[in-house]
């Protein structure tokens, strides 16, 4: 058999052609901004081109992916929060926050609604779990000393988030409107009676004319005991007010994790943590000087941090210090103590 000439390339199989047509189309390209070939560039684009994933940096220090380090607890807390938002919204279709309906709606949910019990159970167990995971997250952050500079503020944001998690759980506890809920909430809100200067049984209440029907507990409950107005208040607080604040603060919290140099670790090599390292080293140097008995603010060798600021040429590359900020600081003798990083000057 002779070869047919001229040579005609084989037709692409129809699937291949279809794929090409689709992935080259304007619509496809408007949605998917990069190809999926596995290379570094696409992996990076995968993160920065996605509004949800871009919460993350493109690359993280290796230890940040280590489950034993973070226990994943902050992330799990966030996951549970999202889960609670979703199940909570669906629950709202079945629930009316009034004395006449609240308990009846719960009964109906447990007996008549398709997948009602599953929905309610998912919400309740996730809520309990979130309280547990947020406490464990705080415990982890403390144990790794991750609240230290520069993350002091984010720790404070976290403490408010802890409080909000408790309040979210507490307000939700009332909604089933059964014996368990109203009495647990009664026990809890009774504390408001004793607030100094605010509660009817607290210090100075007599002088201020505080009574059960005009004190802070009355404002909280909308009455002198847990009743229908309380149910409405807790409902709105639980479904709108508190989640809104919590979500906002979570945004601040996550943003701060990034701005403070990512997940803490013994390695300090990002821009923000360069600052942290500088502060930590400064503190350690000062302390060593004090231990050695030199004047804390003297201008001798004890305070080398200030000294090299002027003579050092601005263009000199900042050499990576061998010891991380956490390790014992270098002795203050060598004149090579680092100048403050440029963004910290002044």
């Amino acid at each position, binding site marked *: 058999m002779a070869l047919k000439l001229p040579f005609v390339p084989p037709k692409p199989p129809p699937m291949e052609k279809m794929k090409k047509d689709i992935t080259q189309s304007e619509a496809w390209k408007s949605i998917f901004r990069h190809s999926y070939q596995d290379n570094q560039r696409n992996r990076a684009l995968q993160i920065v081109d996605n509004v949800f994933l871009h919460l993350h940096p493109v690359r993280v220090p290796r230890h940040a992916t280590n489950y034993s380090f973070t226990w994943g607890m902050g992330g799990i807390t966030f996951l549970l929060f999202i889960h609670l938002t979703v199940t909570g919204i669906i629950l709202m279709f079945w629930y009316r926050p009034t004395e006449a309906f609240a308990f009846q709606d719960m009964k109906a949910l447990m007996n008549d609604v398709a997948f009602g019990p599953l929905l309610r159970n998912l919400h309740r167990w996730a809520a309990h779990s979130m309280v547990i995971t947020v406490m464990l997250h705080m415990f982890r952050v403390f144990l790794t000393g991750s609240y230290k500079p520069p993350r002091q503020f984010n720790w404070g944001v976290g403490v408010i988030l802890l409080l909000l998690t408790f309040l979210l759980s507490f307000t939700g506890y009332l909604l089933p409107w059964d014996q368990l809920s109203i009495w647990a909430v009664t026990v809890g809100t009774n*504390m408001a009676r004793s607030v100094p200067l605010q509660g009817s049984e607290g210090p100075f209440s007599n*002088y201020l004319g505080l009574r059960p029907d005009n004190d802070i507990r009355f404002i909280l409950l909308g009455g002198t005991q847990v009743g229908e107005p309380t149910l409405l208040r807790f409902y709105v607080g639980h479904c709108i007010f508190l989640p809104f604040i919590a979500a906002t603060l979570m945004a601040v919290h996550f943003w701060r994790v990034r701005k403070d140099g990512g997940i803490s670790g013994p390695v300090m090599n990002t821009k923000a943590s360069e600052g942290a390292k500088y502060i930590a080293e400064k503190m350690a140097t000062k302390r060593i000087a004090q231990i050695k008995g030199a004047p804390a603010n003297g201008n001798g060798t004890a305070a080398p941090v200030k000294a090299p600021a002027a003579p050092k040429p601005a263009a000199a590359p900042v050499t990576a210090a061998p010891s991380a900020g956490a390790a014992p600081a270098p002795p203050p003798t060598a004149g090579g103590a680092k100048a403050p990083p440029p963004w910290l000057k002044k």
Partner: protein
Amino acid sequence: MSDALHNFWLILSKPDNVPIVLMIILVVFYCWLAYKQARRNDRLGIFEATQSDKVQVWPYLVKIEFLVTIIVLIVLTVWAITINAPLEEAANPTLTPNPSKAPWYFLGLQEMLVYFDPWIAGVMLPTFIIVGLILVPYVDPNPKGNGYYTFKERPFAIATFAIGFLILWVLLIVLGTFMRGPGWYYFWPWEFWDTHRVVALTNIDIWEGLFGIPSKNVDGSFNLLQVALGGILVIGFLVALPMWIWKKYKEKSPVLRQMGALKFGMTAVLFLMMAGLPIKMFLRLAFNIKYIWVFGIGHDLFFNI
């Protein structure tokens, strides 16, 4: 006996108490995990990676997040299928259950009500907990141990927080859930939760117990000697003790000097308040001591401590 254990099993397996069992397991596991890493770091020194030791989030982190998401959702779903959330009788404001308990995560706070007046235990102490937590980063003078597990480099901080969290928070929740029965009395696991239990009130104020000095005179006014003794003890503990430590050690201790008087004062007072709780609990549970200081100003400011 087996009836009683059965009784305990009923409490243990109440749907709302399952999370607490879960919490115990998780806390124990993570303590072990943290301890293991701290010990390794303390022995070998911390591993210092270099600039290049970074990994790409996609796939190395996203992969883990995906996996954890699936596991958490599976656990929740299985849990939600197997155990129903409780729904008791409809709310009835005229029928108070015994015991009446706050939600489980507040049981540590409810426990404190046994030992102090409500305005102290229910309002001031929780406020101090929140404020104290927020202050932690600003008063901790130790630059070491930032970003890795260690015990050796910050023994005081770790020990304080561990005791506060594990004992004064988690343990009190566990005891409050499983052992506080009707009347908020302690019941052993093998004891039946008897709603009619009567316990003779044998609690006595400390000065009466020690020296026979009553807290109040026959006419109902405060006994001034008791007020003085109690005041000296309480104020001495919370104010004079930190001042004395400051005076004595500020020369010798660079840590104190670095903190300065204000930070040291705040830290010491918060720390001593925290330490005061288990001391008071011990006095009550072991010696039936009711109050150390019984004092009031005007109509409604009472220091029953």
